[in-house]
Every structure is written in C-alpha cells, then in structure tokens.
C-alpha cells in the first residue's frame, strides 16, 4: 500500500460518497471502505485492473477520466480522489475542473518534480530525471505534464480553485505546506497532497 493512502483517508469523512479516479487495483478503495465506511466507486482505464477490482467486489467502471467523467452529474460525490495521475492527462486543467464539478471536494496527489533529487539529476547528468517515483525514460513516460508542488499552488490561482489543505510527504512523514515553507517543501517533498474545492 502506498504511504499516502493513510493521509488521503484522514482527509475523508466517514460514510462519504467517494469516486476514485484512476483507481488502479482498488487498494485505496478497499482501504477507504474498511477505514471510513465510504460508498466508493472507481474509474480505471486498464481492463486488467478493472478485473482485479471486480474480483475484490468493488464497483468500477472501465473508462478514461479525461473523457468519461462527463457522464457524472454535478456534485455526484462528496470527494473525488485523483492519485498521482494529473501529470498523465492531455489537459490537466479540464480534468481539475471536471473533478470539482462532479465532486464537492477533490484530493489530488502529485509526484513533485521539484524534489532535489530530480533537480540534481538534471543538473549533473543533463538527461531527463529518472527516480523511484518517476521510473520512465522521456520517450516512453505516460507523464507528459509534470509539475512541482509550487507549480500546483500557482495553478490554483491561475485556474481559480481553492486549496483547502496542502501536505507534503517526506520520507513517509507528512507535514503541512504553507506560504513560509513552500520553497523548502518544494525541494524536499516527494509527493504533494492537496485537498481542493471550487
């Protein structure tokens, strides 16, 4: 289980209605079901992973979040979770807007491209960074829109959504991000976790 699942779970109220976008093999869905007794649905692009979710008794729709969120009416869910996939979409702006249309709140996690290892990697090697959380080469990566924690904070101002809570994951420890420590968290945070609203 990914270390951020516990953090995501702490951000979600009990018995809420939740949509997990890009739910993968349903690990987070199961975790939230057990811990928060949520009414949870998933959407996943991989047929194989949809099968895994069905085998776990989870309600999952095979689909592409970029096109298939359209089918959900406004405010269908209390929370919509998007875990480490924002960078893989053709149009992240539309995806964020769609998340906040179908959900009252959204939880978005992003692998931080501003992490010092990434920066050093590019600085000294002069090649596109390859790290544990970003294991692909530039030519085969699904991650076409990488951003940093700082970029995401700026993004909230540009496309106008509220960041209700922002957290950084550093060595499996979670800490708050605020205006004063943003530069520091952007350097050391491996993952940014944001609870956002319209």
């Amino acid at each position, binding site marked *: 289980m990914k270390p951020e699942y516990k953090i995501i779970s702490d951000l979600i109220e009990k018995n809420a209605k939740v949509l997990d976008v890009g739910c993968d093999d349903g690990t987070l869905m199961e975790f939230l079901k057990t811990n928060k007794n949520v009414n949870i649905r998933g959407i996943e692009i991989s047929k194989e992973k949809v099968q895994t979710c069905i085998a776990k008794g989870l309600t999952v729709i095979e689909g592409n979040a970029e096109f298939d969120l359209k089918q959900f009416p406004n405010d*269908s869910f209390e929370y919509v979770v998007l875990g480490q996939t924002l960078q893989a979409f053709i149009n992240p702006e539309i995806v964020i807007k769609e998340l906040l249309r179908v959900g009252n709140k959204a939880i978005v996690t992003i692998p931080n491209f501003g992490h010092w290892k990434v920066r050093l990697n590019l600085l000294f090697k002069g090649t596109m960074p390859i790290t544990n959380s970003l294991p692909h080469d530039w030519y085969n990566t699904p991650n076409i829109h990488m951003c940093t924690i700082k970029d995401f904070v700026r993004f909230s101002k540009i496309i106008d959504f509220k960041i209700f809570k922002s957290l950084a994951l550093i060595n499996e420890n979670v800490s708050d991000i605020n205006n004063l420590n943003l530069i520091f968290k952007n350097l050391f945070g491996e993952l940014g976790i944001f609870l956002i609203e319209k």
Partner: protein
Amino acid sequence: MDIKQNIKTLIVEKPLKLDCGQTINNFPLAYETYGSLNHEKDNAILVFHALTGDQFVTGINPVTKKDGWWSYAVGSGKSIDTDKYFVICANVIGGCMGSFGPSHENPKTKKIYGTDFPVITINDMVNAQINLLDFFGIKKLFSIVGGSMGGMQVLQFISNYPDKTKTAIPIACTSSHSAQNIAFNELGRQAITADHNWSDGDYNLKNIVPDKGLAVARMAAHITYLSKKGLQEKFGRKLQERDDLKFGFDADFQIESYLRYQGSVFVDRFDANSYLYITRAMDYFDLVKQFNGNLSNAFKDTKAKFFIISFTSDWLYPTQENKEIVIALNAVGANVGFVEIESDKGHDSFLLNIPDFLKALKNFLDKSYAEKLS
C-alpha cells in the same frame, strides 16, 4: 418428437395485457431450473435467453440433445454456479419451446395461430416471466442476467420491477434497437416470408416448413454475430473439401459450407413464425422512447447493483451502446460497474468460452452475494 414430457410449464392464469392491446390469460410459460432454492429464498437468478435461445440454459437440452446455450457460463462451479444459486430460465412468450407462441392452437378458432398470434414486445416477455417469482415464492431475486435480447429483458425487467432484484447484469445489449439492428432483422423476416412454403404463416396446416427462408434468415443473422477478424482467422478463403474452385455455385469455400450448416441445423429446432415474432419484439424495443427520451428515468427507482459487460469486437451491440446504459445509470447515481472484454469473437462472445468474461461474471456474482445486499 414429443417434447412436452420434458418441458416444465407454468400456466399463467392472471390476465396479461399486452402492449398491442390484447389481453391473454391461462397461457403456458415453459421454464427450467438448475440448482436449488435455499431456505431464505435469496439465491435465485433469473436468466433471460436471446433470440434463438430457450429455457435449457445448461446441461444437455432434452429436445435438441445438444449442450444448453450457456453451458460455458452456467453450471456446477461455473460463473453462474448452480451449486450456489438457483437458476431459473423461461422460454419467452412468442417462442417455440413450450411457451405461448404462434405455433400454439388458438382456442377460439381451434386453428394454429400463425400470424394471428398477437405481436409481443420485450415488455410483454418480462411481464409474463414475473409470474415465476410468485410461483416459486421469491420476493426478491439475487440477480437477473442476460446477453443480447436477454440483456434487453434485464433492462426492461428492472424498469418495470425496480425492487425485485438485488443485482442486474445486462450483457452485450442496447437500450434501443438501432436502424442497423432492425435492417438485419427485416432481412431475416423477408427471407422467411418470401419462402413459398411460409404460406402466409399457415405452413403448419399444410405440414410443410419454410426451411429455406428460415435457413437464410439464420445465415444472415449468424454473420452479424461474428467479427470480420474472427471469420477471417477461422475460415479465410479456405476451400471446402476440394483442391480448387469448381466454377459453380456449390459451397466452394468453407465459410459457405459453415453457414449452410448453421442454417440447416437451425430449421430443425426453430419455428419460422416465432422468428418473425421475436425479431419484431427486438425491433420494437426502445427503452429510451418509453421514458420520453431520458433513459435514466428507467432506472431512477432502483437500488440494484448493476454490472454491464460489452465485447471489443461486437459490432451488433457495440461497446458505445452498452456505455450509454452506464451513462444513464450514473446520471441517477445508480451503483454500476462496467467492463469491456477483449475478444475477437464478435457478438457471440457472451456465449463462448472467453475466460476474462466468465471470470468477471463469476467474481461480480460471488462478491455481490457475499455482501448480502438488501
């Protein structure tokens, strides 16, 4: 062939008002069951058959002596596990395996109905089958399952009886028959009625069968159940028991011989008038129109858990049409899962041994049953 002794029949006494306006009562509904109903009566699954299916879902069909049409999916330890679930399947009205249909005698005229039989709809089929629940004392089914026309019955059933099932699995189907669907059905009907033996539907009186027309109808339909890739891989341009073309009109190609065979075995087990009536029922099916253009309203009263399955190479009821059902369900916040199964076997995939499909079906049913849904 005395088929009657092998067929269980419920005589439905309650009047049933058909969509065409006529009312029928005291009509036979032929059915079969597999497995056993548990003490709580909460393990029943109603399976709906497709156009040319019947109530003999699995095991050896006592009439045709062949495997039941869904032997891959239904049986001991299979996806629809008869060790666990009580499976019920009825022959649709309009059919020819014991249920009230055009080959029955009209009590008023003492003549076989033929085309005097009332035109029936998917709605009528479902409303006839609901009587089986009372008959078995089942308040709520655990599931309703069906592919193709069976899937249409699933959708109609849940919109008519939203609280009569805990789960629903429409497979490779549509909420509204498309122009292309109607066109292929019309081709089949024209083939039958163009056969001189059809005799305006009264072939039974003359003891003849419009077998040529019915066979052509089956051949045409059979092509729509397969994919181009599947056909090409199975037959290609392979020749039938000959080394070269014969420059004539015998079956030179294996595909020709295959289709001729499919046509010929079909006429032995199926009634031509039933084919007309059932294809008509499919063509009339339009759940979208029934709910004034908003399919979601068909599902707004149900708490059932849905699982929709489509197949990549099915061009008769393509994924997009199945997805429209998913979209309509999501629009009313229904509990719906969906998967498109990779298969090059075309529409027929739901009847075949497609492991990913059979696995998904089994997992959904078994996990949902363990959940003890209300």
